[in-house]
C-alpha cells in the first residue's frame, strides 16, 4: 500500500523560503495565509550556538486527530497514499480540526472552510513532486512512498538519523527531518 511521506535534510536546508513561495503560487493561498512555513530554532549559549532550520507543513499523520474529530467527515484520509485532505463542500468551519492539530498546520480559509497542505495531491497524481519539493534549490526535500523499501525516502530514513516533530503528541507524523 502506498504511504506518501516527506524527508527533509536539515543539514542542507538554508531557510530560503522558496518552498513557502512555491506553495503559495501553486495553491493560490489567500493573502496572509500559507500552508507551509519555516522554523528557525537556536539552541545553546553564545558562542556555542546551533541553528536548526525546518520547512514545516501538515504532517499527514498516520493517526490524524483532525480526521477523527471532524463531525462531518470533511477531513479524511485519501484512498491513495494516505494523504490527509479536506472536502470543502462538507466542511462546516467548526474549527475543531484547527484546535486538534498539535502542529497548528490548519487555518480557516477566508471562504469559510478549513485549509492546509495537500502534499500537492493534484501534482502527485500526475506523477510530479509537490511544488515545495520541486523548487528546493538545495535539494533538501524528498518525497515518496514510505512503504516502498526501495524508494528514495525509505533509503534516506534507513541510512540517516532522523526525527519527527512532537512525536509525544502521538499522531505519528509522516514528515521526517534528517539530522
Amino acid at each position: 500500500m502506498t504511504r506518501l511521506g516527506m524527508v527533509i535534510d536539515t543539514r542542507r536546508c538554508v531557510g530560503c523560503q522558496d518552498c513557502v513561495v512555491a506553495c503559495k503560487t501553486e495553491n493560490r493561498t489567500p493573502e496572509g495565509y500559507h500552508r507551509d512555513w519555516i522554523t528557525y530554532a537556536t539552541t545553546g549559549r553564545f558562542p556555542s550556538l546551533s541553528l536548526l532550520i525546518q520547512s514545516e507543513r501538515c504532517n499527514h499523520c498516520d493517526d490524524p486527530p483532525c480526521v477523527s474529530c471532524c463531525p462531518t467527515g470533511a477531513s479524511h484520509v485519501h484512498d491513495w497514499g494516505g494523504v490527509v485532505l479536506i472536502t470543502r463542500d462538507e466542511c462546516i468551519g467548526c474549527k475543531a480540526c484547527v484546535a486538534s492539530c498539535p502542529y497548528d498546520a490548519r487555518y480557516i480559509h477566508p471562504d469559510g472552510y478549513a485549509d492546509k497542505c495537500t502534499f500537492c495531491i493534484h501534482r502527485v497524481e500526475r506523477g510530479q513532486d509537490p511544488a515545495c519539493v520541486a523548487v528546493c534549490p538545495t535539494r533538501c526535500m524528498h518525497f515518496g512512498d514510505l512503504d516502498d523499501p526501495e524508494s528514495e525516502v525509505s533509503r534516506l530514513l534507513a541510512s540517516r538519523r532522523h526525527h519527527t516533530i512532537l512525536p509525544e503528541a502521538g499522531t505519528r507524523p509522516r514528515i521526517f527531518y534528517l539530522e
Partner: protein
Amino acid sequence: MTPPAPELISTAHSPLTDPELHAWGWEIAVYLFLGGLTAGLLVLCGHALWRGRRSPASAPSFALASSGLPLIGLAAISLGMLALFLDLAHKPFVWRLYLTMQPRSPMSWGAWILVLVYPVLLAGVLLDPPSWLGARAPALTRRFRAIADHDRTRRWIGLVSIATGVALGVYTGVLLSSLGARPLWSSGLVAPLFLVSGMSTSAAIAHVVSPDHGERDQLLRLDSLLITVELGLLALFLIGLSSSTEAHAAAARLVLGGPYTAVFWVGVVVLGLVLPLGLQILTAAGRIADTPVAAVLVLCGGLALRFVIVFAGQTSHWSRP
C-alpha cells in the same frame, strides 16, 4: 548552569501578529455554558418526572420549579445553538452535520444529542404545561396530562430526560478533552467538571424560580453539594495536570501564576464558587435571608469557567525543541 531555552522563530505564527492559536472565541464558551445549563435542567426535570409531580409536600422532588424549567432549557439551548452557529465559518454547509454520524468525533455525537434535547424538553413542557398553554390548547394539554398520569410512561420519559442531560453535559467536556493537542484540555476530568458545573448552574436557576419554600431549601442544599464537588474536581484537575508531562504542567501554570490566574481564582473560584457556597451555607443555617445573589454568582462563575478553559486551553500547546 541551566541551558537557556531555545529561541524559536516561526514564519507560520509570527509572535508579532499571531502569538497563539485562538480558533474558538466567545461563542464556544457561551455555548458550552448554556449547553451545561440545559444538561442540568434536563436532569432536574427528569428527576421530577421520575419521582412524580404535583405532590411536593409528600414527596419533595423539585416538582414546582420543574414546571418552568423545560421552558428555560429550551431558551438556553436555543441561544447556545445560535452561539454555536455564529461560530461556524462555513455556515451554508451546517446541514452536513446531519448527513453522517462520525463515531470518533465528539462534535458529531453532540450534534445528534442536541436533536434529542428538543423533544425531551418539549415533553417536559407539555407534561406539566404552564397555565397559558393550558388555556390556549386545552385538547393538547389534556392528552399530555393523561400521559403524565400514567406512572410508567412518565417515569420512562424522566429517565430519558436524565440520560439526555448527562449525555449533553458530558459531551460538552469530552468535546474539549478529546483534543489532545491542547494539554489543558486533555484531562478526563473536564467532562465531569462541566457536567457538575452545569448541574450547579441549573440548581441555582431552579432555586430562583421555585415558588415553594421547602423546595427552595432543598435546591439550595443540592447546589451547595454540587459546588463542593466542583471545587474538588477543579483541584483534582489541576493536580493531575501539574503532576503530568511538562506540557501539561505548563498548561496548569496558565492558571497557577500565568496570564489566566486572576480571572480563574477571582472570577471562577472565589466569586463563582466559594462566595456563593458561603452565602448558601449561611442561608441554609438561617443566618441571612434567602436572596438570588448566590444564584447569580453561580451562573457568572459557570460562564467564567467556560471562558477560562476555552481560552487558556487554546493557549496551551506541546513544547517545541
